[in-house]
């Protein structure tokens, strides 16, 4: 199966905490092409995990549209979402252990993850998957015998147990040392390259982010920036608003009036001194 595209328009998610409605995402519009490898960046609490869970059908959007391939996620029933996860979307949750059945070895964990796949789907062999992530040697080892890096690899393997069109991975490299981190990243790249699976992964590690072909930074529930191969760009939203990078935002506190002018070499933003504005 080839990769699935992701496309969102005005995606909003609101949850209730301590008696208040909190908007985790307030109008996200992104578009990911099939087979892309995209990193989600942003400070904690920005809404990265929420976006990931929405894509996996673990949460339902409060408003807006969300398309995963052909799936119109916001309209799907629980059963349809189950079916989507059973075949088309693989999820690797933060904390490798949470993705695994503790009493099963890696190969059985993969078999476990394959159980719910639709009957018409041709499933990859579990050994093949372990080979892909580089865990073939540990196929029968109990999980307790694996290193943290191997456990994370196993979690990734389980996430792709059905060769879904989309892999969602939440902080797959946190709490790993550099060597393990690089192995996991390499495995994910390999999966992306060899199967054409679309990958959306969350990271807060700038080093990891720098190696990704595309990154999307989310701040305060909105898209703050996009990166292309390590280079950061601001993104103009569908309503024409433009979130400023943090170091610019510091210079232009909220409420600052700016003059936006177009010149030959681009668009200039010039703050208007306060006295002048009055």
């Amino acid at each position, binding site marked *: 199966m080839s990769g699935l595209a992701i496309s969102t328009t005005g995606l909003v998610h609101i949850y209730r905490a301590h008696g208040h409605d909190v908007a985790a995402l307030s109008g996200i519009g992104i578009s990911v092409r099939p087979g892309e490898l995209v990193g989600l960046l942003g400070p904690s609490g920005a809404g990265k995990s929420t976006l990931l869970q929405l894509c996996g059908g*673990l949460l339902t959007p409060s408003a807006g549209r969300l398309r995963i391939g052909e799936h119109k996620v916001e309209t799907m029933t629980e059963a349809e979402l189950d079916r989507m996860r059973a075949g088309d979307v693989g999820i690797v949750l933060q904390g490798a252990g949470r993705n695994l059945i*503790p*009493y099963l070895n890696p190969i*059985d964990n993969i078999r476990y993850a394959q159980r*719910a*796949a639709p009957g018409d789907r041709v499933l990859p062999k579990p050994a093949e998957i372990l080979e892909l992530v580089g865990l073939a040697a540990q196929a029968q080892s109990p999980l307790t015998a694996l290193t943290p890096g191997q*456990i994370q690899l196993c979690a990734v393997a389980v996430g792709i147990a059905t060769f879904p069109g989309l892999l969602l991975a939440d902080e797959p490299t946190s*709490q790993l040392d550099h060597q393990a981190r690089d192995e996991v990243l390499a495995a994910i790249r390999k999966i992306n390259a060899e199967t054409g699976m679309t990958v959306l992964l969350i990271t807060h590690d700038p080093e990891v982010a720098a190696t990704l072909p595309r990154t999307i930074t989310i701040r305060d529930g909105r898209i703050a920036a996009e990166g292309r191969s390590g280079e950061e760009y601001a993104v103009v939203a569908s309503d024409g608003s433009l979130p400023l990078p943090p170091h610019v935002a510091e210079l232009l506190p909220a409420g600052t009036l700016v003059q936006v002018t177009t010149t030959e070499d681009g668009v200039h933003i010039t703050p208007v001194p306060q006295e002048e504005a009055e």
Partner: protein
Amino acid sequence: MFLRQALRYRWSQALVLAGISLLIGTCAVFGPWFARAVQQTVVTETLHGQRLSAAWQLETRPVRNLSDEPPKPEQLQPLIPADLAPLFTKPVLGIHSDVSWTGTEDPIVSRLLWRDGVCDQVVIVAGRCPAAANEVLASTVDQSTWGIEPGQTIRGIGEGAAQPGVLKVVGQYRPKDGTADYWFGRPPTGRSHPPTDKSPGETDLLLTARPTFAGDLWSQHTTLDTRPLPGVVRLDDLDRLESATTASQGKAIELGADNTSALPGVIDQIRHERAQAATIIPLVMVQVALFGLVVLALALAVVVDQRRPELAVARLRGSTARRTSKTLTVELGLPVLIGTLLGAPLGFALLLIVRSTWLRHGAPIELPWSVPVALVAVAVVALGVVVLQVRGVVRLQIATLLRRVAPSRRRAIGVIDLCIIVFAVAGLLSAVGGSNRGPLPVLAPALLALAAGLTFAHLLLPLAGLISRRALRRGRLSLALGTLQISRRPAVTRIVAAVAVAASLVAFAGQAASVGEHNRESRAGYETGAEGVLKVEASYVARFMHGINEVDRDRRWLTPVLITRPPSPDALQTVMIEPDSFRTIAYRGDQLTDLDGFRDLSAPSVEPIEFSTRQLTVTASTGPIEKVAPEVPAGATPPVEQPPAKSIRLTAYVVDLRTGARNVVTFPPLPLGKPPTVLRAPLDCRDGCRLLRLGVSRELGDQGGLRGDVHIEKLSADDQPALKLGRPEDWRPMQEPGSNQDRIAAKPGAGLTLAVTSFGAEQVLQYATAPAVVPALIAPDYRWDPSATTPAFDGTPIALTKLDRLGGPINRFPLHSAVIDLETGRRIGGTVDEASTQFELWLNAEGVAKADSIIAKLRAEGLSAQLIDQRTDRIASYGRSASALALQLTPVVGIAGWALAIVVLLLTVVTSWRSRAQDYASLRITGVPAATTGRAARWEQTGPVALAVLLGSMCGVVGAQIALPLIPLFADAGGPIPLELEVNWPVAVLLWAVSTAVLAAVTLLLGTGVNRRAGFARIREELT
């Protein structure tokens, strides 16, 4: 698919689930099984204990016409239906005839008896067993009374027989065991008496051989005795037995016979006990099973909760909620199902143990239909619990499942808990409020504890929060940490509720068992009268008293009790006791009445007037005599004018010291207004007599009214020229019915002066050795009125005055009894009517132990006695009643309660120890001392658990107070012996202490374990 791995990974949890289910299954199976077995045992025990009532005793009436062929006992046998014959003992056939001796002055009667194999049932002390016609064995007692010895002959004539016959004595026997089944209540009496004592004279049984009855010399009653076999007759036979009994009674009449069996009444009683067993036992077990189900539900909730991450993974990989729940249901349902089903063999094993101990093999091994039904029902319910618990969690949203900690539900004060509290209180009220004596009250303690425990648990959380905040402010760390753990871990409410219910079950079990036992013991004591009762065959009170004085003059082991029964069952019977020895020997004898009561009861200590003589001589005169006319009520017809009074007659009532006979001596008439006259009357008092009363009567037909004094100057006997007649105030007039205008009184003067007003009726003064009106303790069931009387030995009425000092039920004879002093009874005297008088010796424990030697000594004194009743027998018999057997289960309930409470504790620890240990480790790494966290770890559970045990124990005790009056402790509700349902505090305190110790030990151990595992390495665990 991965079931095997899953089960192996959490094998201990599976084991716990299977264990709880095993308990549930066992209870479900054991309840109906045990109930059925108890019912069977009740049949066995009742038939065993009421042998005589249950027996069929067929007896023909003698044929009128001797030329008719008398029926043979074999002819009665067809009255037992062939299909029921195996249920009966081998019938004992018999023929007997009452023979009047011929050639004696006074009438003498003997019963001539043949019974199948009778010689084996007596001890032949001389001669041989009769073999030919008209040979007899005579009793040893008849040797002393009549001098009957082997070789002699007895001439007599049978009832309605034409000619007398001759019986040849070929041997002598001594009764062996009159209570043996063989006799069916009609053993040799062991007594005989000559007609001089009482007419007619009687011998004991004359045992003969069957050929004696072959001719028509002796008219005959034929008898057939049999009884249903205990242990063979089963529940299902009862209906047939009952109808066969009724049918046989009808058929017997056609044969000219009677079947006097009381079997239908016995069967009725069995049915009554059955009903008790069928309600109490299943209910008790249902209680445990229900508690088990609740614990199973708690355990499952915890277990399922622990599987949230795995459920999340399954759902994450696209498993539908349905499929996920199916997988988990199988994983958890399997151990539950296996455990429940294993309850069947375990329940059966338990039944076998109980059957051979409590039930004494009184029940057959069978499989009542209710057992598999209960097992299937409980298995279905247990699986239902699994399904419900699994569904509740699996239905959660994945995002919720993914959260490590369940969203805090502390604020939503458990609606379910609230419902449980409301239901428990409602159930409690209906259990208490309903006047039914049915099964519901058994639930009262558990319901009470559930309501109280949950309420307490919900109060505990905020309370612990409060304490923790105060403790934190004051820097008391251990207390603060412990209470914080309590207030933040709502699981403690489950623990507290479960522990409270368990402690309550234990406390209730203790109360029910101990109070039940106490009542069985006290009831057995009151019913027996003392530790044991000897029935003594005696004809003379004096000989009886002499005999027992020879055996035990100091009354260390026994107290005599004599009972005389009135002809009418509604009238009072006399229970004569010896107050001093009764107090120490009888069961709770000192509580019959207080010291004043016993003193009032005792015979007055007045020197009796005793003499030996062949005649009595009185020297008497009258003072001035005036003529009086009877007072006539206004409007009534005046009586016919009577001629003037002619004379008066003095009478003396003397009691024969040997026979007790009360003889009246009537002196010749005493002329009026003459100088002192000497009057003589013959009297046979060679063995000594005692003057009881003096009377004034008149010659026949002399009814003219007179009033004046009669001076008795001297009363002399052969051995005493002048009897001391005592003070005038020692002579009290006796009220005679109908003598409403006649008066007599003793007054001061020389000798004894009697002031008399007479219209012809006899006036009597009784000497103060016996009160004219006897003080008596009257059974409370009797509607007292001052005219009530009670029979003396000879049946003559004794006037009574009621002592309002009865302290408790009257031992052995709680109904329709008047307790008077035995010595008073003796002084009043009267020839003993053997048919209505019973001689008993009540024994204390030591006396029972020495019963054999006492019986032997009595025999040496010529008194045959046998132990007819023992308190321990009655206790044992009550112990095998349906109610007792049912209540015997309550300790099982208690132990199950403890076990389940410990399971709950273990569960919470198993599921929470890791996070608690991590918490404590986190604190310890910041420098909080291990001792502090240790104290907190130990007491965070021990504190609430100890409080819960206290609360539960109190609920159990209170619940017992509510429930016990409603639980039938005995088959016959009410009864004359009041129940003693006071709290048994020693048992309550002991069980509370044991419950606290057991559960606190568990929590302390667990707490210590948690703290020991709170090493620093625990913090690292969090990383994986």
